[in-house]
C-alpha cells in the first residue's frame, strides 16, 4: 500500500516538473521580446544591435527634447475621444437592438460583424476614399472618426450581451415603485450597465491606441498617432528613444493593472467584512 502511494507521489512530482518547464517556455515565448526591448532601452549605443553599456540618456532625451512624447499625447487624445464617442453611440445602438423590434434588426445584427471581420487595409482604403469624396481634410478629426467606426461594433456586441442578460423586470420594479423613466435609467439601468460600459471603454481604448493600419491611411502630415510615427521611423532606423518610450508605457500599464487588482481586492474585502449599518 505504502509503495503504491509512493509511486503516485513520484509520478505527480515528475508531472509538476514537466509542467513548470512547459510554462517557462510559454512565458519566455510571450515576454522575451518585451524584455529584450526593455533591456535595450538602457543601452548606451545609437544602433541597437549589441550591448555596449548602461545608460539613462534615452529616457532623458525622451522627456527633454523629443517629439515622440508629443505623438503619444495625440494618440491618447484620439483614443479618449474615440472611446467616449463610440461607447455612447454603441450603447444607444445596443439598446435599440435589444429592446425594440423592427424589420431590419436581423440585418443590422449581422452587419455589425462586417467591420470586425474585414481586413483593416480594406477599411482604411474605404475610409480614405470616403474622406476624399467628402472633401474632408485628413488629420486628427479624420482619425477619431475612423477609430469610432471600428470601435462601435465591439461596443454594441459587448453591450448587447449585457442588456440581453439583464432582467427587464428590475426596471419595471423601479417604475412600479414610483420612479419615472429618467429616474429609473439613472438609478437602476445605468448602474447595472457600468461593468459593460467599463469593458467597452477598455476595449475601444485598446483598439484605438493599438491601431496602425487604418490610422496610417487617414493621418495628416502633422497630426499622426504614435504607432504610425514609430512605423515611419523604422525606415530611417529606430532610435533607442522608442525603446525608452515603450518601456515607460509598459511600466504605466503594469502599474495600472496592479492598482486595479489591488482596489478590486480591497473593495471586495470591504464588501464582505464591512456590512453597512443603518440603524
Amino acid at each position, binding site marked *: 500500500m505504502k509503495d503504491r502511494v509512493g509511486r503516485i507521489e513520484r509520478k505527480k512530482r515528475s508531472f509538476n516538473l514537466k509542467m513548470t518547464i512547459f510554462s517557462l517556455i510559454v512565458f519566455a515565448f510571450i515576454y522575451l521580446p518585451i524584455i529584450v526591448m526593455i533591456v535595450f532601452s538602457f543601452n548606451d549605443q545609437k544602433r541597437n544591435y549589441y550591448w555596449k553599456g548602461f545608460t539613462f540618456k534615452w529616457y532623458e532625451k525622451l522627456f527633454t527634447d523629443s517629439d515622440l512624447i508629443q505623438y503619444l499625447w495625440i494618440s491618447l487624445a484620439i483614443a479618449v475621444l474615440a472611446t467616449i464617442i463610440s461607447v455612447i453611440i454603441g450603447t444607444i445602438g445596443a439598446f435599440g437592438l435589444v429592446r425594440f423590434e423592427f424589420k431590419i434588426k436581423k440585418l443590422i445584427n449581422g452587419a455589425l460583424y462586417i467591420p470586425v471581420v474585414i481586413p483593416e487595409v480594406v477599411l482604411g482604403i474605404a475610409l480614405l476614399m470616403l474622406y476624399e469624396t467628402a472633401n474632408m481634410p485628413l488629420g486628427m478629426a479624420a482619425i477619431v472618426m475612423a477609430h469610432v467606426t471600428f470601435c462601435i461594433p465591439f461596443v454594441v456586441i459587448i453591450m448587447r450581451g449585457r442588456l440581453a442578460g439583464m432582467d427587464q*423586470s*428590475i426596471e*419595471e*420594479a423601479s417604475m*412600479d*415603485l*414610483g420612479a419615472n423613466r429618467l429616474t429609473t435609467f439613472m*438609478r437602476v439601468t445605468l448602474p447595472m450597465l457600468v461593468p459593460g460600459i467599463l469593458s467597452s471603454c477598455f476595449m475601444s481604448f485598446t483598439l484605438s491606441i493599438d491601431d496602425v493600419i487604418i490610422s496610417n491611411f487617414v493621418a495628416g502630415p502633422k497630426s499622426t498617432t504614435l504607432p504610425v510615427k514609430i512605423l515611419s521611423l523604422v525606415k530611417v532606423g529606430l532610435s533607442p528613444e522608442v525603446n525608452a518610450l515603450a518601456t515607460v508605457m509598459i511600466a504605466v500599464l503594469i502599474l495600472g493593472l496592479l492598482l486595479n487588482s489591488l482596489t478590486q481586492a480591497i473593495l471586495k474585502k470591504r*464588501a464582505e467584512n464591512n456590512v453597512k449599518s443603518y*440603524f
Partner: protein
Amino acid sequence: MAEHIVQLEKVNKYFGDNHVIQDLYLNIEQGEFLTLLGPSGCGKTTILRMIAGFEEATNGMIKVEGERVEDKEPFERNVNTVFQSYALFPHMTVYDNIAYGLTVAKVPKDEIKERVKEMLELVQLMGFEGRKPDMMSGGQKQRVAIARALINRPKVLLLDEPLGALDLQLRKQMQIELKRLQQKLNITFVYVTHDQEEAMTMSDRIAVLQKGVIEQLDTPDEIYKHPASKFVANFIGESNLFDGVVESVDGNTVCAKLVDGGRMKLDAEGFSAGDAITACVRPEVMGYSLEPVEGFDIKATVKNVIFIGSQYKMYAFLDNGQEIKINRTKQDSNVREGDTIWLHWENDDAYGIKESV
C-alpha cells in the same frame, strides 16, 4: 360599488394576432385575497401586468379605486408588484432596495429610516439591511421584494408567482406567512399562480382561467365541490369525469346513460331528459364493489395500487381506456391487479357539470 378596489370591464388584449385576454370582466374587492389560477399561457400574468401598467389593454376599462388607469404609467398607479424573479436592485443593499419607493418620492430621511425598519420587522429581516441581494437566499430575497413593494402602502399588492423559485418546504411556509401578512395589513392581494394547492391554501376567491377566459370565479370550497366546467374539475384537484346523456329526472336525482355505454345516477339540478351531463366524482368518494350496484353500470379493471404514505391510490381503467382514480386511507386486500370492479357513488357525492361549449 365602492367595494371594488379593482375593476376590469370588457378588457381585451392581443399580442399580434394572438387574442390572450377575451372580454374579461373582473371585480376585485377591498381586502380580499384573490388568486388568478391557470396553466401557463392562460393570460393570468398578462392580467396582472395590465393592472400594474406594464402591459396596455388593447381595449376595455381598468379601474383602480374607482379611477380609470388605462392611460396611466406604472409609476402613477397606486398598486405595487412582487415579481417572480424578485427583481431586486442588485447594486443596492437591502435597506436601499426597500427604501427605494420612498427615496424616489423624496420622503424625509428620518421617516424613510423609520418605515424601512418597520418593514424589516414585518418580514423578519432585521439585521440584513446592510447586505446586497446576491448575499441572500431565495426566501430572504422574496421577503425583501415583499417589503419593498409594501413600503409605499399600496391599496393593492400584485404578486406574480412569487414563490415559484422556492423549494417545496419554504414555499409552504411562505404561503402561510403571506396569508398572515395579508390579513394583518388588510390590503388586497392579487396573486398569480399555476399551483392549485397554493391557490386553495391562501385564497378568499379563485379565478380559474383558461385561454384568456375566466372559467369560474368563486371560493376555493365552491370551486372544488362544484366545478363549473370539466377543465376546472381537472385543474382543481383530481377528479373522475363521466360524460353522459340524461335519461330521466326524478326530483333531484338524474339518471343518465354514459356516452361510451353504461349507466349512472347522481343528484343534480337544472337538467332535463336529453341534456348532456358530465358527472364529476372526486377520487376520495369514488366507490366500487365486486358486484354491480343498483342504478350503476360502469365496469372497470384494476391496474395497480400505490401507497403514498397518507393514502392508497388505486388506478383502474374503463373499457374505453379512461383512467379512474380511487383514493383510500386503508388498504383493501380484496382487490388485486386485473380484477373487475363496478363503480358507483352516493348520489350527492357526484356533481353534474353542464358543459356550455
